[in-house]
Protein backbone atom coordinates (compact mmCIF):
# COMPACT_ATOMS: atom_id res chain seq x y z
CA UNK A 1 0.00 0.00 0.00
CA UNK A 2 3.02 2.20 -0.48
CA UNK A 3 3.42 4.32 -3.58
CA UNK A 4 6.66 5.91 -4.56
CA UNK A 5 6.06 9.25 -2.90
CA UNK A 6 3.75 9.12 0.11
CA UNK A 7 3.28 6.44 2.67
CA UNK A 8 -0.42 5.92 2.36
CA UNK A 9 -0.39 3.65 5.33
CA UNK A 10 0.82 6.47 7.56
CA UNK A 11 -1.74 8.78 6.11
CA UNK A 12 -4.55 6.30 6.58
CA UNK A 13 -3.58 5.89 10.22
CA UNK A 14 -4.35 9.56 10.72
CA UNK A 15 -7.95 9.05 9.59
CA UNK A 16 -9.72 6.99 12.27
CA UNK A 17 -12.93 6.72 10.26
CA UNK A 18 -11.15 4.62 7.63
CA UNK A 19 -10.92 1.81 10.15
CA UNK A 20 -14.66 1.60 10.59
CA UNK A 21 -16.86 -1.10 9.13
CA UNK A 22 -20.10 -0.30 7.38
CA UNK A 23 -23.06 -2.63 7.01
CA UNK A 24 -21.68 -4.57 9.94
CA UNK A 25 -18.52 -6.04 8.45
CA UNK A 26 -17.52 -4.22 5.28
CA UNK A 27 -14.41 -2.05 5.51
CA UNK A 28 -15.31 1.46 4.48
CA UNK A 29 -14.13 2.48 1.02
CA UNK A 30 -14.71 6.21 0.92
CA UNK A 31 -14.96 7.44 -2.66
CA UNK A 32 -17.20 10.46 -2.03
CA UNK A 33 -14.44 12.99 -1.57
CA UNK A 34 -15.76 15.52 -4.03
CA UNK A 35 -18.76 15.90 -1.74
CA UNK A 36 -16.72 16.17 1.44
CA UNK A 37 -13.46 14.63 2.58
CA UNK A 38 -12.67 12.81 5.78
CA UNK A 39 -10.68 14.59 8.52
CA UNK A 40 -7.36 13.59 10.00
CA UNK A 41 -7.09 13.25 13.76
CA UNK A 42 -5.00 16.44 13.78
CA UNK A 43 -8.00 18.48 12.62
CA UNK A 44 -10.42 16.78 15.00
CA UNK A 45 -8.05 17.40 17.90
CA UNK A 46 -7.45 21.04 16.94
CA UNK A 47 -11.19 21.63 17.29
CA UNK A 48 -11.47 19.75 20.58
CA UNK A 49 -8.38 21.45 21.86
CA UNK A 50 -9.90 24.84 21.19
CA UNK A 51 -13.05 24.00 23.13
CA UNK A 52 -11.15 22.27 25.91
CA UNK A 53 -8.60 25.00 26.44
CA UNK A 54 -9.25 28.42 25.00
CA UNK A 55 -12.79 28.77 23.72
CA UNK A 56 -13.81 32.42 23.65
CA UNK A 57 -15.40 34.98 21.41
CA UNK A 58 -12.77 36.91 19.50
CA UNK A 59 -11.62 40.40 18.54
CA UNK A 60 -13.46 42.40 21.15
CA UNK A 61 -12.26 41.27 24.54
CA UNK A 62 -9.03 41.74 26.45
CA UNK A 63 -9.04 38.62 28.59
CA UNK A 64 -6.53 35.85 28.05
CA UNK A 65 -8.87 33.30 26.45
CA UNK A 66 -10.05 35.89 23.95
CA UNK A 67 -6.50 36.79 23.13
CA UNK A 68 -5.50 33.18 22.50
CA UNK A 69 -8.60 32.52 20.41
CA UNK A 70 -8.12 35.70 18.38
CA UNK A 71 -4.49 34.86 17.66
CA UNK A 72 -5.36 31.34 16.52
CA UNK A 73 -8.25 32.54 14.38
CA UNK A 74 -6.14 35.20 12.70
CA UNK A 75 -3.24 32.81 12.27
CA UNK A 76 -5.48 30.69 10.06
CA UNK A 77 -6.01 33.70 7.85
CA UNK A 78 -2.26 33.96 7.35
CA UNK A 79 -2.03 30.26 6.56
CA UNK A 80 -4.82 30.47 4.01
CA UNK A 81 -3.17 33.46 2.36
CA UNK A 82 0.03 31.50 2.06
CA UNK A 83 -1.65 28.33 0.88
CA UNK A 84 -3.17 30.01 -2.16
CA UNK A 85 -0.30 32.49 -2.48
CA UNK A 86 -2.07 35.72 -1.71
CA UNK A 87 -0.17 38.83 -0.69
CA UNK A 88 -2.67 40.65 1.49
CA UNK A 89 -4.09 38.73 4.41
CA UNK A 90 -6.98 41.17 4.70
CA UNK A 91 -8.27 39.91 1.35
CA UNK A 92 -9.16 36.57 2.95
CA UNK A 93 -12.77 36.50 4.14
CA UNK A 94 -14.05 33.56 6.15
CA UNK A 95 -17.52 32.38 5.14
CA UNK A 96 -19.49 29.13 5.53
CA UNK A 97 -18.40 27.66 2.22
CA UNK A 98 -18.08 28.15 -1.51
CA UNK A 99 -21.80 28.71 -1.83
CA UNK A 100 -21.85 31.60 0.62
CA UNK A 101 -18.71 33.07 -0.94
CA UNK A 102 -20.29 33.23 -4.39
CA UNK A 103 -23.53 34.61 -3.03
CA UNK A 104 -21.59 37.27 -1.16
CA UNK A 105 -20.06 38.40 -4.45
CA UNK A 106 -23.41 38.30 -6.23
CA UNK A 107 -24.98 40.46 -3.50
CA UNK A 108 -22.22 42.82 -2.50
CA UNK A 109 -20.45 43.27 -5.83
CA UNK A 110 -23.09 42.16 -8.31
CA UNK A 111 -25.92 44.37 -7.18
CA UNK A 112 -23.70 47.42 -7.53
CA UNK A 113 -22.07 46.51 -10.81
CA UNK A 114 -24.54 44.53 -12.89
CA UNK A 115 -27.11 46.53 -14.79
CA UNK A 116 -29.84 45.90 -17.32
CA UNK A 117 -28.64 44.06 -20.43
CA UNK A 118 -25.24 43.33 -18.95
CA UNK A 119 -24.02 39.80 -19.49
CA UNK A 120 -22.92 37.37 -16.81
CA UNK A 121 -21.09 34.34 -18.19
CA UNK A 122 -20.87 30.97 -16.52
CA UNK A 123 -20.36 27.45 -17.88
CA UNK A 124 -22.37 24.34 -18.54
CA UNK A 125 -20.33 22.36 -16.04
CA UNK A 126 -20.91 24.59 -13.03
CA UNK A 127 -22.15 23.49 -9.67
CA UNK A 128 -25.54 24.99 -8.79
CA UNK A 129 -23.81 27.33 -6.39
CA UNK A 130 -22.13 29.02 -9.35
CA UNK A 131 -25.36 29.23 -11.36
CA UNK A 132 -28.27 30.01 -9.06
CA UNK A 133 -26.80 33.18 -7.46
CA UNK A 134 -26.22 34.55 -10.97
CA UNK A 135 -29.71 33.60 -12.10
CA UNK A 136 -31.14 35.47 -9.12
CA UNK A 137 -28.95 38.48 -9.84
CA UNK A 138 -29.68 38.47 -13.57
CA UNK A 139 -33.39 38.31 -12.89
CA UNK A 140 -33.29 41.17 -10.42
CA UNK A 141 -31.26 43.40 -12.72
CA UNK A 142 -32.65 42.43 -16.10
CA UNK A 143 -29.21 41.14 -17.08
CA UNK A 144 -28.48 38.10 -19.22
CA UNK A 145 -26.88 34.85 -18.16
CA UNK A 146 -24.88 33.02 -20.82
CA UNK A 147 -23.16 29.65 -20.73
CA UNK A 148 -19.83 28.50 -22.10
CA UNK A 149 -20.57 25.10 -23.62
CA UNK A 150 -18.86 21.79 -22.88
CA UNK A 151 -17.46 19.69 -25.75
CA UNK A 152 -17.66 15.92 -26.05
CA UNK A 153 -14.34 15.53 -24.30
CA UNK A 154 -15.75 17.35 -21.28
CA UNK A 155 -13.81 20.54 -21.88
CA UNK A 156 -15.05 24.11 -22.19
CA UNK A 157 -15.57 25.55 -25.66
CA UNK A 158 -13.68 28.81 -25.22
CA UNK A 159 -14.94 30.14 -28.56
CA UNK A 160 -18.24 30.68 -26.81
CA UNK A 161 -16.52 32.94 -24.31
CA UNK A 162 -15.06 35.01 -27.14
CA UNK A 163 -18.46 35.45 -28.72
CA UNK A 164 -19.88 36.81 -25.48
CA UNK A 165 -16.87 38.98 -24.71
CA UNK A 166 -17.06 40.58 -28.14
CA UNK A 167 -20.48 42.04 -27.33
CA UNK A 168 -18.64 44.26 -24.87
CA UNK A 169 -21.39 43.64 -22.34
CA UNK A 170 -19.81 40.95 -20.22
CA UNK A 171 -19.28 42.19 -16.65
CA UNK A 172 -18.23 38.98 -14.98
CA UNK A 173 -17.23 35.47 -15.96
CA UNK A 174 -17.68 32.82 -13.26
CA UNK A 175 -16.34 29.32 -13.65
CA UNK A 176 -15.04 26.35 -11.76
CA UNK A 177 -11.35 25.58 -11.82
CA UNK A 178 -12.24 21.90 -11.76
CA UNK A 179 -15.55 20.32 -12.65
CA UNK A 180 -17.05 18.37 -9.75
CA UNK A 181 -18.62 15.89 -12.21
CA UNK A 182 -16.20 15.49 -15.10
CA UNK A 183 -13.01 16.24 -13.23
CA UNK A 184 -11.99 18.55 -16.06
CA UNK A 185 -9.32 21.07 -15.09
CA UNK A 186 -10.28 24.40 -16.60
CA UNK A 187 -7.69 26.38 -18.51
CA UNK A 188 -8.19 29.20 -16.04
CA UNK A 189 -5.22 31.35 -16.96
CA UNK A 190 -6.33 31.45 -20.56
CA UNK A 191 -9.85 32.48 -19.58
CA UNK A 192 -8.55 35.19 -17.24
CA UNK A 193 -6.33 36.51 -20.05
CA UNK A 194 -9.21 36.75 -22.48
CA UNK A 195 -11.50 38.37 -19.90
CA UNK A 196 -8.89 40.98 -18.98
CA UNK A 197 -8.67 42.06 -22.60
CA UNK A 198 -12.33 43.02 -22.38
CA UNK A 199 -12.34 44.33 -18.83
CA UNK A 200 -14.59 41.58 -17.55
CA UNK A 201 -14.19 40.47 -13.93
CA UNK A 202 -13.44 36.84 -13.20
CA UNK A 203 -14.73 34.70 -10.35
CA UNK A 204 -13.20 31.27 -9.94
CA UNK A 205 -14.90 28.51 -8.00
CA UNK A 206 -11.99 26.64 -6.45
CA UNK A 207 -14.08 24.17 -4.43
CA UNK A 208 -12.64 21.21 -6.34
CA UNK A 209 -9.26 22.61 -7.33
CA UNK A 210 -7.76 23.93 -4.10
CA UNK A 211 -8.03 20.55 -2.34
CA UNK A 212 -6.26 18.71 -5.14
CA UNK A 213 -3.95 21.06 -7.05
CA UNK A 214 -1.40 23.68 -6.20
CA UNK A 215 -3.27 26.98 -6.64
CA UNK A 216 -1.39 30.25 -7.03
CA UNK A 217 -3.65 33.27 -7.02
CA UNK A 218 -0.91 35.72 -7.90
CA UNK A 219 -0.29 33.74 -11.04
CA UNK A 220 -3.98 33.26 -11.77
CA UNK A 221 -4.74 36.95 -11.32
CA UNK A 222 -8.51 36.57 -11.17
CA UNK A 223 -10.76 38.94 -9.19
CA UNK A 224 -12.69 36.62 -6.90
CA UNK A 225 -11.90 33.13 -5.68
CA UNK A 226 -14.00 30.80 -3.52
CA UNK A 227 -13.48 27.43 -1.83
CA UNK A 228 -14.62 25.24 1.08
CA UNK A 229 -12.59 23.81 3.97
CA UNK A 230 -14.67 20.65 4.26
CA UNK A 231 -13.52 19.42 0.86
CA UNK A 232 -9.86 19.60 1.89
CA UNK A 233 -9.64 17.80 5.23
CA UNK A 234 -11.10 20.75 7.10
CA UNK A 235 -14.27 21.06 9.19
CA UNK A 236 -17.74 21.72 7.87
CA UNK A 237 -18.97 25.30 8.11
CA UNK A 238 -15.86 27.11 6.88
CA UNK A 239 -15.08 28.51 3.48
CA UNK A 240 -13.02 31.28 2.00
CA UNK A 241 -13.75 34.16 -0.26
CA UNK A 242 -10.69 35.88 -1.61
CA UNK A 243 -11.06 39.08 -3.62
CA UNK A 244 -8.83 41.90 -4.68
CA UNK A 245 -8.58 44.62 -2.06
CA UNK A 246 -9.75 47.41 -4.37
CA UNK A 247 -12.91 45.44 -5.07
CA UNK A 248 -13.57 44.60 -1.44
CA UNK A 249 -13.10 48.24 -0.52
CA UNK A 250 -15.61 49.43 -3.09
CA UNK A 251 -18.14 46.74 -2.27
CA UNK A 252 -21.06 47.36 0.06
CA UNK A 253 -21.26 45.04 3.06
CA UNK A 254 -23.20 41.81 2.72
CA UNK A 255 -24.41 40.94 6.21
CA UNK A 256 -24.75 43.70 8.79
CA UNK A 257 -24.05 43.20 12.48
CA UNK A 258 -21.31 42.92 15.04
CA UNK A 259 -17.63 43.07 14.11
CA UNK A 260 -18.19 44.49 10.62
CA UNK A 261 -18.79 48.02 11.84
CA UNK A 262 -16.56 50.87 12.83
CA UNK A 263 -19.18 53.05 14.49
CA UNK A 264 -22.90 52.48 14.74
CA UNK A 265 -25.18 55.42 15.27
CA UNK A 266 -28.93 55.42 15.15
CA UNK A 267 -29.22 56.45 11.56
CA UNK A 268 -25.81 55.90 10.08
CA UNK A 269 -23.00 53.48 10.40
CA UNK A 270 -19.45 53.23 9.14
CA UNK A 271 -17.71 50.00 8.18
CA UNK A 272 -14.77 48.27 9.72
CA UNK A 273 -11.53 47.63 7.83
CA UNK A 274 -11.02 44.58 5.68
CA UNK A 275 -11.50 41.70 6.15
CA UNK A 276 -13.87 42.35 9.08
CA UNK A 277 -16.26 44.43 6.99
CA UNK A 278 -17.44 41.13 5.50
CA UNK A 279 -17.37 38.98 8.62
CA UNK A 280 -20.52 40.03 10.46
CA UNK A 281 -21.43 38.33 13.71
CA UNK A 282 -19.61 35.69 15.66
CA UNK A 283 -17.73 33.65 13.09
CA UNK A 284 -17.25 29.90 13.14
CA UNK A 285 -14.21 30.30 15.38
CA UNK A 286 -13.53 26.69 16.31
CA UNK A 287 -13.71 25.44 12.76
CA UNK A 288 -11.61 28.24 11.30
CA UNK A 289 -8.97 27.21 13.84
CA UNK A 290 -9.47 23.56 12.90
CA UNK A 291 -9.00 24.48 9.26
CA UNK A 292 -5.44 25.59 10.01
CA UNK A 293 -4.62 22.00 11.02
CA UNK A 294 -5.95 20.80 7.66
CA UNK A 295 -3.71 23.25 5.82
CA UNK A 296 -0.74 22.12 7.88
CA UNK A 297 -1.54 18.54 7.02
CA UNK A 298 -1.69 19.22 3.30
CA UNK A 299 1.46 21.33 3.44
CA UNK A 300 3.27 18.50 5.17
CA UNK A 301 2.42 16.13 2.35
CA UNK A 302 2.89 18.75 -0.31
CA UNK A 303 0.28 19.59 -2.93
CA UNK A 304 2.50 18.23 -5.69
CA UNK A 305 2.49 14.83 -4.02
CA UNK A 306 -1.25 15.01 -3.52
CA UNK A 307 -1.68 15.61 -7.22
CA UNK A 308 0.78 12.88 -8.18
CA UNK A 309 -0.98 10.34 -6.01
CA UNK A 310 -4.37 11.21 -7.41
CA UNK A 311 -3.17 11.10 -11.01
CA UNK A 312 -1.75 7.65 -10.47
CA UNK A 313 -4.93 6.42 -8.80
CA UNK A 314 -7.17 8.00 -11.42
CA UNK A 315 -5.19 6.45 -14.24
CA UNK A 316 -5.41 3.07 -12.54
CA UNK A 317 -9.15 3.42 -12.00
CA UNK A 318 -9.88 4.68 -15.52
CA UNK A 319 -7.96 1.75 -16.97
CA UNK A 320 -9.89 -0.77 -14.92
CA UNK A 321 -13.25 0.89 -15.39
CA UNK A 322 -12.93 1.18 -19.14
CA UNK A 323 -12.57 -2.60 -19.30
CA UNK A 324 -16.07 -3.08 -17.91
CA UNK A 325 -18.48 -3.78 -20.72
CA UNK A 326 -21.40 -1.39 -20.91
CA UNK A 327 -19.74 1.42 -18.96
CA UNK A 328 -19.90 5.01 -20.20
CA UNK A 329 -17.18 7.26 -18.74
CA UNK A 330 -17.53 11.04 -18.80
CA UNK A 331 -14.78 13.65 -18.90
CA UNK A 332 -11.28 13.90 -20.39
CA UNK A 333 -9.37 10.67 -20.95
CA UNK A 334 -6.00 12.34 -20.30
CA UNK A 335 -5.25 12.29 -16.56
CA UNK A 336 -3.09 15.40 -16.81
CA UNK A 337 -6.21 17.30 -17.81
CA UNK A 338 -8.42 16.06 -15.04
CA UNK A 339 -8.66 15.48 -11.32
CA UNK A 340 -9.59 12.35 -9.41
CA UNK A 341 -13.32 12.58 -10.02
CA UNK A 342 -14.82 9.88 -12.22
CA UNK A 343 -18.42 10.02 -13.38
CA UNK A 344 -19.95 7.13 -15.27
CA UNK A 345 -23.02 5.13 -16.10
CA UNK A 346 -23.18 1.38 -16.25
CA UNK A 347 -25.69 -0.12 -18.68
CA UNK A 348 -29.23 0.80 -17.72
CA UNK A 349 -28.52 0.60 -14.00
CA UNK A 350 -29.71 3.86 -12.57
CA UNK A 351 -26.98 5.56 -10.49
CA UNK A 352 -29.08 5.42 -7.34
CA UNK A 353 -29.49 1.71 -7.69
CA UNK A 354 -25.80 1.34 -8.39
CA UNK A 355 -24.88 3.42 -5.33
CA UNK A 356 -27.15 1.28 -3.17
CA UNK A 357 -25.51 -1.89 -4.42
CA UNK A 358 -21.90 -0.76 -3.97
CA UNK A 359 -22.79 0.73 -0.57
CA UNK A 360 -23.69 -2.78 0.48
CA UNK A 361 -20.06 -3.67 -0.22
CA UNK A 362 -18.87 -0.80 1.97
CA UNK A 363 -18.19 1.63 -0.86
CA UNK A 364 -19.41 5.21 -0.56
CA UNK A 365 -19.92 6.80 -3.97
CA UNK A 366 -22.29 9.52 -5.00
CA UNK A 367 -25.12 9.21 -7.48
CA UNK A 368 -27.45 11.78 -8.93
CA UNK A 369 -27.03 15.16 -10.55
CA UNK A 370 -24.15 16.27 -8.27
CA UNK A 371 -25.72 19.74 -8.09
CA UNK A 372 -24.98 20.10 -11.79
CA UNK A 373 -28.31 19.69 -13.52
CA UNK A 374 -27.33 21.96 -16.39
CA UNK A 375 -24.47 19.58 -17.16
CA UNK A 376 -26.80 16.57 -16.85
CA UNK A 377 -28.98 18.17 -19.54
CA UNK A 378 -25.90 18.70 -21.67
CA UNK A 379 -24.84 15.06 -21.23
CA UNK A 380 -28.43 14.05 -21.82
CA UNK A 381 -28.60 11.90 -18.71
CA UNK A 382 -30.69 12.31 -15.61
CA UNK A 383 -27.87 11.25 -13.33
CA UNK A 384 -24.41 9.71 -13.13
CA UNK A 385 -22.50 7.69 -10.58
CA UNK A 386 -19.38 9.38 -9.28
CA UNK A 387 -16.31 8.04 -7.52
CA UNK A 388 -13.86 10.66 -6.27
CA UNK A 389 -10.50 10.12 -4.61
CA UNK A 390 -8.26 11.71 -2.06
CA UNK A 391 -4.88 11.20 -0.46
CA UNK A 392 -5.93 8.20 1.61
CA UNK A 393 -7.42 6.13 -1.21
CA UNK A 394 -5.60 3.13 -2.64
CA UNK A 395 -5.48 0.92 -5.69
CA UNK A 396 -6.68 -1.92 -3.49
CA UNK A 397 -9.85 0.06 -2.84
CA UNK A 398 -10.29 0.58 -6.56
CA UNK A 399 -10.13 -3.18 -6.99
CA UNK A 400 -12.85 -3.67 -4.39
CA UNK A 401 -14.93 -1.13 -6.26
CA UNK A 402 -14.47 -2.87 -9.61
CA UNK A 403 -15.57 -6.18 -8.10
CA UNK A 404 -18.65 -4.48 -6.67
CA UNK A 405 -19.57 -2.99 -10.05
CA UNK A 406 -19.40 -6.47 -11.55
CA UNK A 407 -21.72 -7.71 -8.85
CA UNK A 408 -24.14 -4.90 -9.75
CA UNK A 409 -24.08 -6.03 -13.35
CA UNK A 410 -24.94 -9.54 -12.25
CA UNK A 411 -27.82 -8.34 -10.09
CA UNK A 412 -29.16 -6.37 -13.03
CA UNK A 413 -28.57 -9.34 -15.34
CA UNK A 414 -26.29 -7.31 -17.63
Amino acid at each position, binding site marked *: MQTSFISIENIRNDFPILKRMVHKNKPLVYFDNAATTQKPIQVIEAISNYYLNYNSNIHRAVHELAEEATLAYEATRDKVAKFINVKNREEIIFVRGTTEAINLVAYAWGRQNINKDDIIVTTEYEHHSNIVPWQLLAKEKGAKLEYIGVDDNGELILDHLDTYLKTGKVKIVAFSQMSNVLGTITDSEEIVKRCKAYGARVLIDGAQSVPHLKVDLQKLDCDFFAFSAHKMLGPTGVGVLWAKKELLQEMVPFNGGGDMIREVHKYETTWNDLPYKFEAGTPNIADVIGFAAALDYLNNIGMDKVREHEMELTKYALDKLSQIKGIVLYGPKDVTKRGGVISFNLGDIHP*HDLATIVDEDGIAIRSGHHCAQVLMERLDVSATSRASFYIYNTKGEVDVFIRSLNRAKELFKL
Partner: protein
Amino acid sequence: MSSADIYREIILDYYRNPRNYGKIQDPDIAQRDSNPLCGDELEMHLNIKDDKVADVKFTGKGCAISQASASMLTELILGKDFEYVKKLTKEDILDNLGLHDLGPARIKCALLSLKVLKSGLYSYLVDKLHDTASADKIKEESSGLY
Protein backbone atom coordinates in the same frame (compact mmCIF):
# COMPACT_ATOMS: atom_id res chain seq x y z
CA MET B 1 -32.82 -5.23 3.03
CA SER B 2 -30.13 -6.51 0.68
CA SER B 3 -29.76 -5.50 -2.95
CA ALA B 4 -30.55 -9.03 -3.97
CA ASP B 5 -33.92 -8.63 -2.24
CA ILE B 6 -34.57 -5.21 -3.69
CA TYR B 7 -33.62 -5.89 -7.27
CA ARG B 8 -35.72 -8.97 -7.73
CA GLU B 9 -36.84 -10.14 -11.16
CA ILE B 10 -40.19 -8.41 -10.83
CA ILE B 11 -38.78 -4.99 -9.93
CA LEU B 12 -36.32 -5.13 -12.82
CA ASP B 13 -39.11 -6.21 -15.13
CA TYR B 14 -41.30 -3.25 -14.14
CA TYR B 15 -38.26 -0.97 -14.45
CA ARG B 16 -37.42 -2.15 -17.94
CA ASN B 17 -40.94 -2.76 -19.20
CA PRO B 18 -43.06 -0.29 -17.31
CA ARG B 19 -46.80 -0.90 -17.57
CA ASN B 20 -48.97 2.14 -18.22
CA TYR B 21 -46.05 4.26 -19.33
CA GLY B 22 -47.08 7.28 -21.36
CA LYS B 23 -49.42 10.25 -21.35
CA ILE B 24 -53.14 10.81 -21.58
CA GLN B 25 -54.53 13.49 -23.84
CA ASP B 26 -56.55 15.99 -21.83
CA PRO B 27 -56.31 14.13 -18.55
CA ASP B 28 -58.58 15.02 -15.65
CA ILE B 29 -55.61 14.97 -13.37
CA ALA B 30 -52.04 15.78 -14.43
CA GLN B 31 -49.46 16.05 -11.73
CA ARG B 32 -45.69 16.29 -11.89
CA ASP B 33 -43.07 16.33 -9.18
CA SER B 34 -39.38 15.76 -8.79
CA ASN B 35 -37.15 14.71 -5.95
CA PRO B 36 -34.83 17.66 -5.34
CA LEU B 37 -32.24 15.43 -3.72
CA CYS B 38 -31.69 13.01 -6.58
CA GLY B 39 -33.36 14.61 -9.57
CA ASP B 40 -35.91 11.84 -10.15
CA GLU B 41 -38.91 13.12 -12.08
CA LEU B 42 -42.40 11.73 -12.33
CA GLU B 43 -45.59 12.80 -14.05
CA MET B 44 -48.93 11.05 -13.65
CA HIS B 45 -52.03 11.46 -15.76
CA LEU B 46 -55.45 10.20 -14.71
CA ASN B 47 -58.91 10.15 -16.18
CA ILE B 48 -61.80 9.95 -13.78
CA LYS B 49 -65.19 8.56 -14.69
CA ASP B 50 -68.04 7.87 -12.27
CA ASP B 51 -65.67 8.48 -9.36
CA LYS B 52 -63.39 5.79 -10.68
CA VAL B 53 -59.93 5.80 -12.17
CA ALA B 54 -60.88 5.19 -15.81
CA ASP B 55 -57.33 5.52 -17.08
CA VAL B 56 -53.89 6.21 -15.65
CA LYS B 57 -50.46 6.65 -17.17
CA PHE B 58 -47.09 7.87 -16.01
CA THR B 59 -43.83 9.11 -17.43
CA GLY B 60 -40.61 9.73 -15.60
CA LYS B 61 -36.90 9.36 -15.18
CA GLY B 62 -35.41 7.67 -12.22
CA CYS B 63 -34.13 4.60 -10.52
CA ALA B 64 -35.55 1.12 -10.70
CA ILE B 65 -37.34 1.57 -7.40
CA SER B 66 -39.10 4.79 -8.33
CA GLN B 67 -40.08 3.65 -11.81
CA ALA B 68 -41.24 0.20 -10.76
CA SER B 69 -43.12 1.73 -7.90
CA ALA B 70 -44.91 4.18 -10.19
CA SER B 71 -45.79 1.51 -12.69
CA MET B 72 -47.11 -0.86 -10.05
CA LEU B 73 -49.10 1.97 -8.51
CA THR B 74 -50.86 2.66 -11.81
CA GLU B 75 -51.86 -1.00 -12.00
CA LEU B 76 -53.04 -0.92 -8.43
CA ILE B 77 -55.43 2.00 -8.92
CA LEU B 78 -56.69 1.42 -12.45
CA GLY B 79 -60.44 0.88 -12.29
CA LYS B 80 -60.57 1.48 -8.54
CA ASP B 81 -62.89 4.03 -7.01
CA PHE B 82 -61.90 7.25 -5.43
CA GLU B 83 -62.24 6.11 -1.87
CA TYR B 84 -59.73 3.37 -2.52
CA VAL B 85 -57.19 5.81 -3.90
CA LYS B 86 -57.74 8.22 -1.07
CA LYS B 87 -56.99 5.55 1.48
CA LEU B 88 -53.76 4.25 -0.05
CA THR B 89 -50.94 4.42 2.45
CA LYS B 90 -47.21 4.31 2.37
CA GLU B 91 -47.39 0.78 3.73
CA ASP B 92 -49.68 -0.30 0.88
CA ILE B 93 -47.11 0.86 -1.62
CA LEU B 94 -44.20 -0.82 0.09
CA ASP B 95 -46.23 -4.04 0.53
CA ASN B 96 -47.16 -3.97 -3.11
CA LEU B 97 -43.50 -3.57 -4.08
CA GLY B 98 -42.37 -6.15 -1.57
CA LEU B 99 -39.89 -3.60 -0.25
CA HIS B 100 -39.43 -3.05 3.44
CA ASP B 101 -36.64 -1.57 5.57
CA LEU B 102 -35.44 0.68 2.78
CA GLY B 103 -33.11 3.35 4.13
CA PRO B 104 -34.42 6.91 4.41
CA ALA B 105 -32.78 7.94 1.12
CA ARG B 106 -34.25 5.13 -0.94
CA ILE B 107 -37.68 5.09 0.65
CA LYS B 108 -38.28 8.43 -1.04
CA CYS B 109 -37.76 6.75 -4.38
CA ALA B 110 -40.44 4.22 -3.57
CA LEU B 111 -42.91 6.86 -2.42
CA LEU B 112 -42.48 9.55 -5.06
CA SER B 113 -45.31 8.14 -7.16
CA LEU B 114 -47.72 8.06 -4.23
CA LYS B 115 -46.79 11.63 -3.42
CA VAL B 116 -47.50 12.69 -6.99
CA LEU B 117 -50.79 10.79 -7.02
CA LYS B 118 -51.96 12.33 -3.75
CA SER B 119 -50.99 15.83 -4.80
CA GLY B 120 -52.88 15.37 -8.05
CA LEU B 121 -55.90 14.09 -6.21
CA TYR B 122 -55.70 16.97 -3.80
CA SER B 123 -55.83 19.55 -6.57
CA TYR B 124 -58.68 17.67 -8.22
CA LEU B 125 -60.71 17.63 -5.04
CA VAL B 126 -60.18 21.31 -4.48
CA ASP B 127 -60.53 22.56 -8.04
CA LYS B 128 -63.12 20.28 -9.58
CA LEU B 129 -65.12 18.90 -6.70
CA HIS B 130 -64.70 21.76 -4.24
CA ASP B 131 -64.32 19.09 -1.61
CA THR B 132 -61.82 20.86 0.57
CA ALA B 133 -62.55 18.68 3.57
CA SER B 134 -61.30 15.49 1.87
CA ALA B 135 -58.57 17.50 0.20
CA ASP B 136 -57.18 18.76 3.47
CA LYS B 137 -57.13 15.28 4.87
CA ILE B 138 -55.13 14.05 1.91
CA LYS B 139 -52.79 16.95 2.17
CA GLU B 140 -52.11 16.13 5.75
CA GLU B 141 -51.59 12.45 5.05
CA SER B 142 -49.29 13.05 2.13
CA SER B 143 -47.16 15.54 4.02
CA GLY B 144 -46.05 12.60 6.13
CA LEU B 145 -44.87 10.69 3.07
CA TYR B 146 -41.51 12.25 2.62
